[in-house]
């Protein structure tokens, strides 16, 4: 099944207008910043970002802000609760005539995977449960990157972080599997839920634009290459992000009205190794000796994911398919 974009069909559809000024304090090649820039283009200028502690918190450092829009840094655990307060206050003030309706804003949570997967998960699920009308971008660099790259629940099996070092006794690095935030969120049936990648800007922006048609929680997880943490050159950030999609490691998908759709399905999957090999956080899987077991597991997980995905998209009743 091929997915057809509706709003952003060609690169020419992307507005030239920038809402995020350059020269921020982010690391060169930050994938999270790239995702945010594209998200903002799709949302337009009337936005208030509600931020949880993480890398992007350092976007607004007194007396500077790179945004033409508004910004509220809250704390690590409770950005969705901050979004609730802002959304509700805007609604009430407009309802009571104390603020003109033209002053309304889109409320957007911006948070890293460290906050989204753990300390901020409760407040996120609660906001989704309440049906809060907001956007939520988790820029997923697969670790607590702002504090120097320690393991988060989003860190993949086999990746090296500051708290899952590679030693003789712990040759795999991170032993746990990446927590499936998409499925955790999906259980609550948010109005719109998608994974995105800055390497696929049309896919990202089209999802944001279509999500805007729905009221309620609109949640996005963007894989965000982290050059210093992943050990890649800043110039290769977008290329690594593209490899994550082309190897099938980072599926681009969305769900609304209960239906799961893969918006981009690589015609020919490249081997997962192609994605891993270029990143220093996986170097121990290749040298001094190849860790065949770990490499096999990572490839097998991707294969199994897509086998199930194809099964579910090709047959209307997956339970029947099991008996074939």
């Amino acid at each position: 099944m091929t997915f057809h974009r509706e709003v952003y069909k060609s690169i020419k559809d992307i507005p030239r207008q920038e809402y995020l000024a350059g020269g921020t304090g982010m690391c060169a090649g930050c994938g999270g910043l790239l995702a945010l820039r594209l998200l903002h283009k799709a949302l337009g200028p009337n936005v208030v970002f509600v931020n949880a502690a993480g890398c992007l918190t350092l976007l607004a450092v007194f007396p500077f802000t790179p945004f033409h829009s508004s910004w509220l840094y809250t704390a690590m655990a409770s950005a969705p609760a901050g979004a609730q307060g802002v959304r509700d206050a805007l609604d009430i003030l407009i309802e009571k005539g104390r603020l003109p309706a033209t002053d309304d804003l889109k409320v957007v949570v911006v948070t890293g995977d460290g906050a989204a997967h753990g300390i901020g998960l409760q407040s996120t699920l609660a906001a989704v449960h309440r049906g809060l009308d907001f956007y939520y971008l988790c820029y997923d660099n697969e670790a607590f990157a702002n504090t120097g790259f320690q393991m988060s629940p989003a860190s993949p099996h086999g990746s090296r972080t500051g708290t899952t070092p590679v030693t003789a006794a712990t040759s795999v690095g991170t032993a746990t599997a990446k927590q499936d935030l998409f499925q955790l969120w999906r259980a609550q049936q948010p109005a719109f839920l998608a994974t995105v990648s800055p390497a696929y800007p049309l896919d990202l922006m089209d999802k944001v634009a279509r999500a805007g048609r729905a009221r309620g929680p609109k949640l996005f997880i963007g894989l965000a290459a982290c050059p210093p943490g992943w050990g890649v050159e800043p110039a290769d950030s977008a290329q690594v992000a593209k490899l994550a999609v082309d190897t099938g490691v980072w599926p681009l998908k969305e769900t609304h009205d209960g239906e799961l759709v893969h918006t981009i399905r690589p015609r020919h999957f490249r081997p997962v190794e192609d994605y891993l090999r270029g990143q220093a956080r996986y170097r121990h899987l290749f040298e001094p000796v190849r860790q065949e077991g770990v490499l096999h597991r990572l490839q097998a997980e991707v294969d199994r994911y897509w086998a199930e995905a194809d099964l579910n998209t090709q047959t209307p009743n997956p339970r029947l398919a099991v008996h074939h």
Partner: protein
Amino acid sequence: MTRELLTGNAAAAWGARLAEVDYVPVYPITPQTEVIETLAQWTSSGELKARLVTMDSEHSMLTAAGAAAATGARVFTASSSQGLVYGFEMLYTIAGWRVPLVLLNVSRALSAPITLEPDHNDVLAARDCGFLQIHAESCQEVLDSVLMAYRLAEQRDVQLPIIVNLDGFYLSFTREPVEVPCVDAVREFLPARKPLHGFSASHALAQGVAVLGGTGYSFFKYQMQRAAEAALAVHDAVTGEFCHHFGRCYGAVEGFRLDDADWVIVMSNSFSTVGKEEVIRLRAEGEKVGLLRLRLIRPFPSQEIEWLLGGRRGVAVIDQNISVGKGGILFGEVASALRARTAPPLLSFIGGLGGRRFRGREFDLVMSALHAAENTGGSSEPTLLYSEAEYVQVMDMLRVAHRLPDTHQA
């Protein structure tokens, strides 16, 4: 204006209703729940045109409260004890945002051991965060303080959030006659909030941004200190206006039989009522004693306290809290307000922890200690009030806990 029998919790809810708050994020905790249930009833029926949202924790509740206030709404919220300390991070954050809102705290002692009845370790833990604090003695004062709190917090030179404190159980669940002013009179005293700034399409605003280094950080913290200092004079003006509108007058502190008193007992919150009864009894027995009730805890009215206590023959601070390893928190605060030249002998007593009631004759003990201290100068060591009967009672419980035979049988 109507006169009704209201609990402290209901009086607080009436305060929020009369302030015509826009937004009430909530999370239940004993003994605060009656406040939010009452408000939920009114927001559901339309008697209060506000949005009430049940959050997932006090941390989220305070975040939503602060964010809504930063957007421009008038916000009321309420918590207690564990809830207050669970949301503690956000107290500093909201205060740093310089957003006015009212947080009601229904005092309850902190775990462990987990318990229900009040002391003030919860609210006094929040004394350094930038929230202003008013501590109420009666149900009437709870309602009145909520109204005055909005005026104080929203004043241009202040712009700080504020906690109104009442004791759990002793005040939260006690019905007292309360005059409920009519909404028109309240509107005259407390018009709708006019926010200095907020988030909107026509005015972009970056709020809560990081500062790097001590220069910027110190500046913003010093600004908060200056605002809190300014709040002292604003408080006097606001209470004066309230007195003019409604005939009930409050100060930063309340003096009871203080004018000719040689001896002063310092207390706060609802147990002050007990202290006042004891003052009346001791006066009848010939002791020239008065009571100073601390009402405005932040900003702390040091000068007024120094003026009221300086030159007395002796002062005893009875703290319903304990800073473990130090003693009474308010004792330290009062001591810091006094100046060596005029400072009277100052004594520290701890009582009322976890709602413990004062036992008969404990104020006699305070008085005899004050008389003795006139010669010795007193000591800053706290006296921990506890009775023989209580000790026996707890020893019995310990025997049960350890499955030991009763001493009467052994």
